[in-house]
């Protein structure tokens, strides 16, 4: 039973950093890397020992509707592995990058709180508890976005904070109405009660939750904060926000609530599909128009979230498989792209694509990994992004939406165009900078190379034998909520 340790370890690390760390950040950095390594290993250990069953942990020994329960199923482990992986590389990357800004232990404490919040959202089986841990993750994210200390960073953080507060309030209202209608907060118990209450209430609560979680996932039209927040934050934080946070707080929560609790009503699936396609197309166009490297990547995040939502909205087994796989892939290559942008920014001092160029010689590792990530995100074989997009597109064809399929393909071309712009102007055009020294450290290179390797290696998940033990159980969890319900309620 190591489930509560996914909360205890990062939380204890954060508090220890706050108590013990002095002026310097050596201790804080080492401790946080160690604990995120432990988290990743714990998640992998769970993956190998779990045997595709649902495990329930009773906190304080109170059973389901009375106390709070932690629930572990395939989806939980999958998300824990993503969080562990990205946070580990991000912390390794931070070591030099953050010293560039300031040497303060507070960064690492806030970072560990961010991980705590996300892990808490992932493992919990209680609606209000999900809200509380969501707040931990969000509040630390607000502070981390402003960490650079420049004017536009405060502006972005303020915008993000206001949006976050509004969305949290919506979610709390949804929780209140749901509590009034079902008189319980345990997700499984609510799922049990849903058939007994009026479908109109489900639609109202679903609409409110869609606004709340949609704001957190930055689905168009709720996306306005994301390009600012994700481009202003320090690079490792951008990678965390774009790579994991919007997925955990947005997509994961949507999956849990709309699929596992509400039982995937057709009405909402259609909304997901529509919003997904709109996000793909509009964010794709906006991405091409950007000249700021990180802003371009941020807009591209919105469009990739659109793909995940499209896959979920199709609702067939294949569609959900594609969505889950794309979620994993996007976490890897978008974080990698943000690491690249960060090291380019650190070396050249600018994020403006017009002012860069000819970085292939100067920064070989950065430019090569960036090329891999760009190809992967645009869906070029043999990288992982190709397979996930292909699955989503096939699912769209199978479900009888040729028009959506065409739009999704157009979206893929837009992504390619946007990322080629980065490659062309950022790395390959003639030299406009006078910088001759590459200050990327070993840790940063290590983080980038690891993720670039995973862009290749991620593709093997699609081999049927491996898919059977990795992705299929997750799709099973999402599609079939009765098992989850039965085990959590202990019958």
């Amino acid at each position, binding site marked *: 039973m190591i489930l509560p340790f996914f909360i205890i370890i990062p939380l204890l690390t954060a508090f220890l950093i706050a108590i013990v760390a002095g002026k310097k950040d050596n201790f804080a950095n080492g401790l946080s890397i160690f604990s995120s390594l432990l988290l990743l290993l714990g998640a992998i250990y769970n993956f190998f020992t779990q045997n595709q069953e649902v495990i329930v942990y009773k906190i304080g020994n109170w059973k389901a509707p009375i*106390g709070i329960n932690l629930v572990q199923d395939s989806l939980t482990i999958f998300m824990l592995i993503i969080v562990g992986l990205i946070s580990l590389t991000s912390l390794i990357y931070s070591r030099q990058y953050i010293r560039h800004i300031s040497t303060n232990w507070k960064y690492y404490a806030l970072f560990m709180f961010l991980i705590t919040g996300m892990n808490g959202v992932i493992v919990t089986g209680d609606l209000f508890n999900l809200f509380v841990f969501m707040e931990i993750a969000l*509040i630390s994210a607000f502070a981390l976005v402003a960490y650079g200390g420049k004017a536009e960073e405060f502006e972005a953080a303020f915008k993000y904070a206001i949006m976050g507060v509004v969305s949290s309030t919506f979610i709390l209202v949804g929780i209140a109405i749901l509590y009034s209608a079902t008189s319980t907060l345990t997700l499984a118990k609510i799922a049990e009660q849903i058939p007994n209450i009026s479908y109109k209430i489900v639609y109202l609560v679903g609409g409110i939750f869609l606004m709340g979680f949609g704001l957190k996932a930055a689905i168009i039209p709720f996306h306005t904060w994301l390009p600012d927040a994700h481009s202003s934050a320090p690079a490792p934080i951008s990678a965390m926000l774009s790579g994991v946070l919007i997925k955990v707080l947005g997509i994961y929560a949507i999956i849990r609530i709309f699929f596992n609790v509400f039982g995937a009503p057709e009405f909402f699936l259609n909304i997901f599909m529509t919003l997904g396609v709109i996000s793909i197309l509009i964010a794709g166009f906006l991405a091409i128009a950007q000249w700021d490297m990180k802003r371009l990547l941020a807009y591209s995040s919105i469009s990739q979230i659109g793909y995940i939502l499209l896959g979920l909205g199709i609702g067939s087994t294949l569609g959900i498989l594609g969505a889950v796989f794309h979620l994993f892939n996007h976490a890897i290559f978008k974080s990698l792209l943000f690491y690249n942008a960060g090291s380019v920014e650190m070396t050249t001092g600018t994020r403006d694509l017009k002012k860069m160029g000819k970085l292939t010689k100067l920064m070989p590792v950065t430019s090569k990994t960036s090329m891999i990530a760009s190809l992967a995100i645009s869906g070029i074989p043999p990288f992982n992004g190709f397979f996930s997009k292909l699955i989503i597109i096939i699912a769209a064809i199978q479900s009888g939406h040729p028009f959506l399929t065409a739009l999704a393909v157009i979206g893929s071309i837009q992504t390619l165009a946007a990322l080629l712009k980065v490659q062309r102007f950022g790395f390959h055009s003639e030299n406009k900078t006078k910088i001759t020294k590459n200050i990327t450290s070993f840790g940063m290179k290590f983080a980038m190379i690891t993720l670039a390797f995973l862009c290749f290696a991620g593709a093997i998940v699609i081999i049927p034998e491996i898919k059977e033990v990795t992705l299929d159980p997750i799709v099973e969890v999402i599609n079939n909520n009765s098992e989850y319900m039965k085990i959590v309620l202990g019958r």
Partner: protein
Amino acid sequence: MPIETWLIFILSFMIIGSIVALEIKDILSAVIAVGVVGLGVSLSFIFLQAPDLAIVQFLFEIFALIIMVRAFVKKDYHQEEPSKVNKILIGITIITLLAILYFTASILNLLPEFGEPLMNTAQYYLNNGASDTGAANLVTSIILDYRAYDTLGEVTVLFTAILGALTVLRIKSKSHR
């Protein structure tokens, strides 16, 4: 008078108070008007038999007022908002919000009536709370025993928020970055 009438009165007062707070030009008055709305919330908590919350809401109201006044009003920098606000935008916003209200009204009807909650889970706390946890205050028994994990999260939220505020306020930006 039945409690419902009192609450309707207080809530209408709070709505008016918050509209005043938003529309008034002077910022000190706006802060104080929101403070009054918060006290209205505290008063409603007393009517709704939630003394714990009434105390906490009242104290936090004072505290929020101190933060707001200390932060914004003493420095005499605050200038009036520019009067030319986009009328069309405001109109669209109000119409949208009224539409939301209209649709919600029909659905809120379907919830259990005021004063008659379902109490499926809650009845367990009322019956067994004292013998399970040994605390006479059942709200305390919930926040610190049945749902202590939530409270751990809440303490962490507070810690994070304060750490974040301290980080934000003490940042000295390095110019060359």
